[in-house]
């Protein structure tokens, strides 16, 4: 893809379209649906709760996918703003599954552009998964604590802790499940990059 102003001079060094290694095909394999199904009606973006906060709206994400513009796509943090509320998937007139596509994109992005994941979000995910690694379950007090350490949002929500305690909503000592080894094997086998 050559994005420089087209001119006869630059014509020579324009490489062919589309690029060789194809993100498009990866996603096609990952979710078993072909993104070319999308005809850009925009119903997904129209219903997306996070659209207003995304620089790439859902349909634009799919379009870039169709055009195999991995760089521009994966380097945007929009895919990380998806809540997987599945509204898009539910309403897609072409029976495509944008939510699944975005999940698949995140998985690749995590590997290829780890540092592009918004800090707070990657912090949350790793804190969350760490909880599971450690205890087999999520121990919320630990989750909050770990999250704060990772995200650096140390004092956010601090004022709410007493309230949580008063209502008995925060247990302080974690319980570990017996099958924790099994869980850890799952993690190692799934070979997920630890989001940093």
């Amino acid at each position, binding site marked *: *893809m*050559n*994005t420089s102003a*087209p001119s*006869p001079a*630059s*014509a*020579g060094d*324009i*490489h*062919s*379209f*589309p690029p060789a290694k194809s993100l498009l095909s990866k996603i096609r394999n990952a979710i078993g649906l*072909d993104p*070319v*199904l999308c*005809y*850009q009606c925009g119903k997904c973006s129209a219903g997306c709760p996070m659209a207003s906060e995304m620089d790439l709206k859902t349909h*634009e994400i799919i*379009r*870039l996918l*169709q*055009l195999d*513009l991995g760089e*521009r796509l994966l380097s945007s943090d929009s895919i990380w703003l998806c809540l997987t509320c599945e509204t898009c998937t539910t309403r897609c007139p072409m029976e495509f599954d944008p939510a699944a596509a975005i999940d698949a994109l995140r998985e690749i992005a995590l590997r290829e552009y780890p540092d592009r994941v918004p800090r707070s979000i990657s912090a949350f995910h790793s804190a969350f998964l760490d909880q599971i690694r450690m205890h087999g379950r999520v121990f919320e007090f630990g989750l909050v604590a770990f999250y704060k350490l990772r995200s650096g949002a140390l004092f956010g929500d601090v004022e709410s802790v007493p309230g949580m305690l008063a209502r008995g909503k925060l247990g302080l000592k974690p319980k570990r499940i017996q099958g924790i080894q099994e869980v850890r094997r799952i993690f190692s086998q799934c070979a997920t990059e630890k989001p940093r």
Partner: protein
Amino acid sequence: MSRIGVFICHCGENIGRTVDCVRVAHNLENVPGVVHSIDYKYMCSDPGQALIKQAIRELQLDGVVVGACSPHMHEKTFRKAAAAAGLNPYLCEMANLREHCSWIHEDRERATDKAIGLARFMVEKIKYNRPLATIRIPVERRALVIGGGIAGIQAALDIADGGREVILVEKEPSIGGHMSQLSETFPTLDCSQCILTPRMVEVAQHPNIQLLAYSEVESVEGYIGNFQVKIRRKARSVDEIKCNGCGECQKNCPNQKIPGEFDRGLGMRTAIYVPFPQAVPNIPVIDRAKCAFYRGKAKGVKKAVCGKCAEVCGPKAIDFDQQDSFVTEEVGAIVVATGYQLYSIGKAQESETLRGYGEYGYGAIPDVIDGLQFERLASASGPTGGKILRPSDGKEPKTIVFLQCIGSRDRAKGIEYCSKICCMYVAKHAILYHHKVDHGRAIVFYLDIRAGGKGYDEFVRRAIEESHALYLRGRVSRLFRNGDTICVHGVDTLSGEPVAIDADMVVLATAMRAQPDIASLAQKLSISYDRHGFLNEAHPKLRPVETNTAGVYLAGACQSPRDIPDSVAMASAAAAKVLGLFSNELLEREPLIARVDQLACTGCFHCERVCPYGAIERKQLKDGKGRVIKIVAEVNQGVCQGCGTCQATCPSKSVELEGFTDEQVYAAVNAL
């Protein structure tokens, strides 16, 4: 003294509520000439009509005025009733007391006064109505079809199968039109030749069809049911009777290197040639501009420079001295199916309203071709035997780019309409390309996908989903040569992403345009055409295959860009119209047409100038000794449509429009 009956209808409450029908009837009773005046609840009902008939019979009425609804509603009804009672239907008139009175007024008094006035108008008018007889014109029950493309073929076959003679005129050496050039057809992908050729043969063999190929309409006289058409039979330089279509002449023609029109210049033909193997009729024609014999003669060389074809021709069918000849045919109806021409992409345009696409280098860059050229490449009978190969080096293009809307929806180039078929044939091209070229990449630049039609959108989706054509939304700015590839610069407006593609071949999906010579044909037929040269239908919705000239019908792309199914449907519709017209020996017309008072006529022919239909003819009045006294106007009953513009224009009022004569209008106005 006339004996007029007046019948005032209450229309239930519709008139009665605001108009005092009884008073109206009473008032009219006292009008001189009125011998009978009554009111009734429903005049249009059977008992109502019975009242009228009875009165006509018993009181020998010579005029009937029905005060009821709009004549557009019931004039026919009441005139039929009058006729049934033995009164000439044109001695029955209606006063519109409903739409024009009771429904639009509240004040009963004033509405009633007005109703009386309206009825008076008609009573006074009808005193001057004349009994009129429906006009019957004999119909020549043969049809002319102009154009031998799929539309003309379909129309001709339908009419011929309907049992009527057809003269099919085609200006090219063979019928078949553009469809014969196509490879496959959307959305079914059946081979064009395979479905067309049988129809062409059928035309050639049909007992009711007289095929005049390589001929053109020279002039058209007359009117519906009675056209005289003069047809020019262009000189083929080959005797159609003698020729047996063996093809020896072509084999032996020394000039083998002429770019063939049929293959859009991608293949070669000879100077004496049949445009394509399945041509109908299968009779060659000599291209005199290219033939050595004629060029020699033109140069003034005494002895024949070449005569190979004549030498090898067994039946001695070659006739170098053949001249254009003319035939005149009498027909009752004409179907125009002259089709379209392709928009020419290059800078040079024959019309000053159009501009070409210099930016796409068509003609300059060898591997930039148009859609019809791609059809020839994809066609099994084409110059490459159906292989997609580049004109420049015969290589198979691995990346091919299709540009839609070339000459469509482009004001700057002078065409703002949508050509309708391009979206579909590009999808077809993408699919064909996918079938024919392994690991090929097809990219389409489009503005919108217009795929309304049975199975059409599915077809486009098929190109995208199964043939993996990449559709980019946007117009390409320019094509650049880049070594032996073509660099395509565009933007995908959906992603806002600039795109530059190195393509091996670029196909320009060019617009459909009206035929170049349409204006002269339209004048011959006195039918109208739009600013783009597409012929105008009589009504865009309700009379789509008729024209404003009675007896002339339209089929196919001469009316607007059309695909094959549309063209065929139109053709059958036109044929149905023609057969409907032919279903009677006589054509019946309302007698409300103009009539010239030849004694008073001065022959200034203002009427001729204003007549929209050319219905005014010049007639010599002679004395006993056959000397011309004067030349006066005469109205052709078949052509006149009864607008009356002639009468209002005539300074001496020597032409009268039946049903709306000066005396009738005068009388009405006098009743004020």
